[in-house]
């Protein structure tokens, strides 16, 4: 497929037009990937409901059957289950442990631990653990494993 990229001056002008005979799996993936940044998740901030943009999410954690969404400096509760969010946030996110999904773009660096697991430092300074089992998943997402 021929791809044209035109540089624009502001984010508001950003758009993607796809001309295709049929919406194939690849095109659907591309659409979802492009729309990913524009997607929001309804979350509870106390008694208020706020829409949390997916690109602002650092990680999502499940604690005692409740799901919490963490941004740079805020924490919200959401009605989604972790596995549901894993499906919604599939592109830049990966499961780093049984109870957590993390935004890869918010990881500053990773450090190897003694037992094969890794500690990831996020852009806001928080540290999370990547279980040994899920290190493979991260490598696969980053294209380091075939």
């Amino acid at each position: 497929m021929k791809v044209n990229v035109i540089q624009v001056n502001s984010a508001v002008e950003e758009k993607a037009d796809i001309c295709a005979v049929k919406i194939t799996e690849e095109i659907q993936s591309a659409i979802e990937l492009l729309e990913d940044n524009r997607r929001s998740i309804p979350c509870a901030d106390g008694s208020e409901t706020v829409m949390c943009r997916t690109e602002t999410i650092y990680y999502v954690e499940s604690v005692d059957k409740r799901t919490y969404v963490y941004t740079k400096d805020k924490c919200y509760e959401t009605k989604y289950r972790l596995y549901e969010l894993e499906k919604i946030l599939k592109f830049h996110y990966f499961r780093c442990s049984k109870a957590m999904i993390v935004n890869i773009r918010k990881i500053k660096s990773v450090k190897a631990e003694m037992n094969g697991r890794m500690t990831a430092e996020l852009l806001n300074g928080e540290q999370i653990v990547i279980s040994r089992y899920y290190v493979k998943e991260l490598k696969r997402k980053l294209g380091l494993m075939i």
Partner: protein
Amino acid sequence: MTKVKIVFNQTLMISTAILFGIGIQWWIEYMSGGSGTVVWYWYSPFEIIFTGFMGAVPTVLICDWKGRGLGKMRLGIRLFLHFICLGAMVSFCGYLFKWYGGWKEYLPIAVMYVLIYGFVWAVTRWLTKSDAKKINEVLKEIQDQE
């Protein structure tokens, strides 16, 4: 399922390590003018695999590699316990299968065990560190600017 996988992997790893130890021992004997011949009974491979399996049990019981949980101190204690229990299991199986008759024959086995354990540990650590380095290189290219 994960535990079954760990037992299977550990059985393979320990069995290979035992074969490697036997190989080194007989190579040393050959190099120092001995015959370098191993008496290999029909049940010898089963003895090695059984020892590998028995050695996998302490790994499942002692090493909690999953999730967060263990601090450096507790991890160190568990590792030490694992080292002792695995050594005890190999020694016990070696005694059961008459791989050694007395201290003189046991000592090279014990030395070999310490060397192989240290070697496997060092290689695993090196591999994890090298993975972390590769991951950090890719992360630098895709991480958000905040």
